[in-house]
């Protein structure tokens, strides 16, 4: 969930009233926000870097507010205030308008070279804007929030904002070899080639995270004005030439990306949020984008869409009984201008360009419920009549667990993920023989594979509990995973039961006795006849030679028991003899 940090006093000033922290927290909760933290710049720095560094920092109170991940319109102070003011019916939702310029329309021409790397671009102009320091900061911060969220760390969309008065259109969005791109980037004093820049930014704590998006591509995206001035090299950095300042009056905004829909949403969000500060409030000057196929489109779209929802559908989905008029009023409070039309049961809802999250009637139903107040909804029990069944494998597991404990063994709970070493090397088995599934992106060796046996987990549990009095008797009944091309995903879980006995003597007879007890519990008789069970001398790298037997039951091999090999004991950092038993309980269902 994105967190937006706003200055409390600035927020209250914009809201036209003050709140206590508790009151504001309550308001957030009701609206689906969360007042996550009340802090200040000073407090943040002091927490992260100590009091000394925090000495000069501002102690203006900051509210950190958690915003739902799909509400891009609430990612800045301007949007939060507008949303809350409409919710509280203090203002009407503004209408955003796209206007044609008096003079020539700004043009962005996309060349076909961009196709392979970052094919889409949209643009717009904010004319006669008036920034203050706070507004400017909010403008920059919104771009950052969008980059981190809907833009997927600039991979899907990257935003560039420029001082239009320093540039001259038409603009060209193209892709070039990195060695052929040379410009003075933001916050640098001289020109660099793109190759040089990529090197420099490797050590830049902020920018290094975006380099991978284009790093290994033959061509890099770049935007020029008609004089060859570089506006930006998306998604990495803007040019210094067109940088915006608090004094900038006319802003050219370009969004490039690989996801056209999201690029359009991002542009809509920026211009709807900040056109508030334009001379003609809430109007945005159009820009024309010419695609490689020659077709041109005008942006921003600022599309208003009409949806029709029946009032009784809303009532039925939420579980309330409101009149259509009331429902329309509730929706209007959620920034969705609504009115009752037709037979008096139809509600027509206008979805503004700020609410890209509304894609289905169910989204409208939710907003009606929020405005009604979740906690005002009457709770009722559904009349759904059902008979409960347990999943047979879990039912058997539950029964066996209790009797394993009754037999004196203690239940362990170990991880399903582990290292290759745990299931292979330490047990004297080659990893290829385990048929284990392998994880492609483990952060550490602990998460290389899914376990193929429960034994390593139990041995590690003993290793962590060597100070406990002997004997240690442990068991676990849980799933292991084996590759299996007969399943739809190519892997299958097996429910295993594993038990270990760790003492000054190997105690094979105890583990053997436990097997007899388990078979007794499962009503499997000794002997090979009639699906009984028998153990037969066997061998395995994990077991001491001559001290291992395979368990056959219900006509199939279900596992092994034996005294562990001293090498296995040593590799798990244990010192005492140990015997173990591991069976698949699936065949006993």
């Amino acid at each position, binding site marked *: 969930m994105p967190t937006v940090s706003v200055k409390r006093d600035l927020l209250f000033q914009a809201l036209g009233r003050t709140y206590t922290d508790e009151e504001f927290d309550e308001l957030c909760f009701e*609206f689906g926000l969360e007042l996550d933290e009340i802090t200040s710049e000073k407090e943040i720095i002091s927490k992260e870097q100590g009091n000394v560094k925090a000495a000069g920092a501002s102690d203006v109170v900051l509210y950190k507010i958690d915003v*739902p*991940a799909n509400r891009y319109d609430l990612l800045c102070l301007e949007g939060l205030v507008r949303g809350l003011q409409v919710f509280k019916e203090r203002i009407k939702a503004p209408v955003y308008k796209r206007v044609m310029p008096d003079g020539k329309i700004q043009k962005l021409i996309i060349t076909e070279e961009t196709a392979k790397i970052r094919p889409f671009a949209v643009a717009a102009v904010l004319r006669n804007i008036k920034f203050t320091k706070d507004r400017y900061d909010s403008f920059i911060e919104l771009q950052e929030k969008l980059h981190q969220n809907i833009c997927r760390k600039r991979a*899907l969309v990257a935003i560039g904002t420029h001082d239009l008065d320093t540039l001259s259109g038409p603009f060209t969005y193209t892709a070039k070899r990195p060695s052929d791109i040379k410009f003075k980037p933001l916050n640098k004093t001289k020109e660099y080639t793109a190759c040089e820049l990529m090197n420099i930014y490797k050590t830049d704590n902020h920018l290094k995270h975006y380099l991978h998006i284009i790093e290994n591509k033959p061509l890099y995206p770049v935007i020029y004005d008609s004089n060859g001035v570089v506006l930006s090299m998306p998604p990495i950095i803007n040019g210094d030439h067109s940088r915006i300042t608090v004094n900038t009056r006319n802003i050219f905004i370009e969004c490039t990306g690989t*996801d056209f*829909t*999201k690029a359009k949403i991002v542009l809509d969000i920026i211009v709807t949020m900040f056109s508030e500060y334009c001379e003609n409030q809430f109007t945005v000057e159009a820009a024309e984008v010419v695609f490689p196929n020659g077709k041109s489109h005008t942006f921003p779209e600022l599309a208003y869409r009409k949806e029709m929802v029946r009032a009784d559908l809303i009532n039925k*989905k*939420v*579980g*309330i009984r409101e009149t259509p008029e009331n429902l329309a009023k509730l929706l209007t409070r959620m920034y969705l201008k609504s009115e009752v039309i037709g037979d008096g049961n139809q509600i027509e809802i206008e979805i503004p360009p700020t609410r890209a999250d509304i894609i*289905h*009637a169910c989204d409208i*139903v*939710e907003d009606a419920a*929020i405005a009604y107040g*979740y906690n005002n*909804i009457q*709770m*009722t*029990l*559904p009349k*759904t009549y*059902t*008979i*409960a069944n*347990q*999943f047979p*494998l879990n039912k058997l597991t*539950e029964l066996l*667990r209790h009797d394993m*404990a*009754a037999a004196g063994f*203690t*239940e*362990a*709970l*170990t*991880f*399903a*993920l582990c290292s290759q070493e745990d299931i292979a090397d330490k047990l004297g088995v080659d990893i290829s023989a385990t048929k284990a*599934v392998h994880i492609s*992106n483990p952060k550490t060796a602990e*998460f290389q594979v*899914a376990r193929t046996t429960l034994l390593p987990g*139990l041995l590690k*549990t003993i*290793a*962590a*509990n060597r100070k406990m009095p002997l004997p*240690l*008797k*442990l068991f676990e009944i849980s*799933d292991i995973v084996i590759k299996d*091309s007969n399943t*739809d*995903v*190519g*892997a299958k*879980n097996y429910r295993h039961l594993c038990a270990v006995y760790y003492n000054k003597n190997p105690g094979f007879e105890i583990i053997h006795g436990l097997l007899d007890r388990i078979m007794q519990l499962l009503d499997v008789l000794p002997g090979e006849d009639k699906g009984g069970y028998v153990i037969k001398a066997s061998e395995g790298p994990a077991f001491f030679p001559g001290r291992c037997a395979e368990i056959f039951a219900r006509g199939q091999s279900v596992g092994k028991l034996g005294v562990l090999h001293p090498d296995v004991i040593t590799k798990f950092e244990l010192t005492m003899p140990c015997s173990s038993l591991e069976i698949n309980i699936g065949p006993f269902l």
Partner: protein
Amino acid sequence: MADGPVAELLLRRLEASDGGLDSAELAAELGMEHQAVVGAVKSLQALGEVIEAELRSTKRWELTAEGEEIAREGSHEARVFRSIPPEGLAQSELMRLPSGKVGFSKAMSNKWIRVDKSAADGPRVFRVVDSMEDEVQRRLQLVRGGQAEKLGEKERSELRKRKLLAEVILKTYWVSKGSAFSTSISKQETELSPEMISSGSWRDRPFKPYNFLAHGVLPDSGHLHPLLKVRSQFRQIFLEMGFTEMPTDNFIESSFWNFDALFQPQQHPARDQHDTFFLRDPAEALQLPMDYVQRVKRTHSQGGYGSQGYKYNWKLDEARKNLLRTHTTSASARALYRLAQKKPFTPVKYFSIDRVFRNETLDATHLAEFHQIEGVVADHGLTLGHLMGVLREFFTKLGITQLRFKPAYNPYTEPSMEVFSYHQGLKKWVEVGNSGVFRPEMLLPMGLPENVSVIAWGLSLERPTMIKYGINNIRELVGHKVNLQMVYDSPLCRLDAEPRPPPTQEAA
């Protein structure tokens, strides 16, 4: 029969004495260690009223090792005096004597000796008096003879300052006859035996009293893991509420069932390498239900079923990618898909509790794997009010009655609600679960009828367990590093019972 020879002796002496006797004196008389007598006193005491023993502490003066030496061989000054012949002794030579330094200055101040500094070969020491009385030796001998009281307070303290004398406290017992005194006491029986029962001798035997303050011996037993005890309780609650358990025995899942089927777009951050464990082998799912896949694809990329869709280029390759399921909702999706294939539709209530996996940054409350609890109800005409009603019943069974609901965002539920409960210990509202109504974009492509709603909620098994039992670090609860003592000691899980007051620290 008496309890050892010393006890027997003690009882005989006590019988002969009038009034009582002192343990230290008895030890001196018998010529044995005082401790042996004390042991006998204690063993007799344990028999009940045979003797009475009163603990007394007496102060006594004893000689130090140096004091003993002086009592034996005379004070340093006396030894210096005696070592000087009539013709005198060179001072340097005198100082080399064992008692030289201390003895010299004392003998000087006693005016027993003098120094002639004008002697030709350096200072020379001569006797001043012909004989002297060694008072120090005499006094110490008095103390040694147990007559310390004959010395004055001042004399004693002077000897103590010279570290020749020390005051020790001696603990002794004053032993007298008890109400059940007898020299022929029999030993008390500790336990009832089969022989006593058959012979009836238990009637005549005294039995040693039990110490009820001592701890019992814990039974030699196995133990269930506390988190899995909580899991059993949650299963029980669902079963009581008529919910059927879904199969969840597939840790490996395709992206399709884990994300796409839930209408979670392919660029969603949860599908990032940073959040999800993908598989290298087997990297891709072998089979997908292709008809259904087509409907899902269309819904994502173009919309449909009343939806705008996400309008992006949906890729089958992305859906095929295998992963470790990030939630059990993938199993719910499979169960709902199977349900949708059965005609006519029958209402269901489903639940599951099983492991899920996240490639997250690990901390005190987050592990790469945890258990997810999930409940699902599918029926005609279910409302948000129904969801809240079911949640209220469910949480009441957990002992949580104060609930409130916060609007939230979930990719596959709309409306969505976070469930908060008021935590008395923490004095604040804490999130206890997430819930919602599954989106039509998820249900309709499966083939479920349009008027069927599916309400669902989920929570982790670990978090309520940690809050309930006041555990702050998840590693103390799950994994191979847990302390088995914690497993041995963990109480029954009774979710609706008041927990004992948590330890001082707050749960995170």
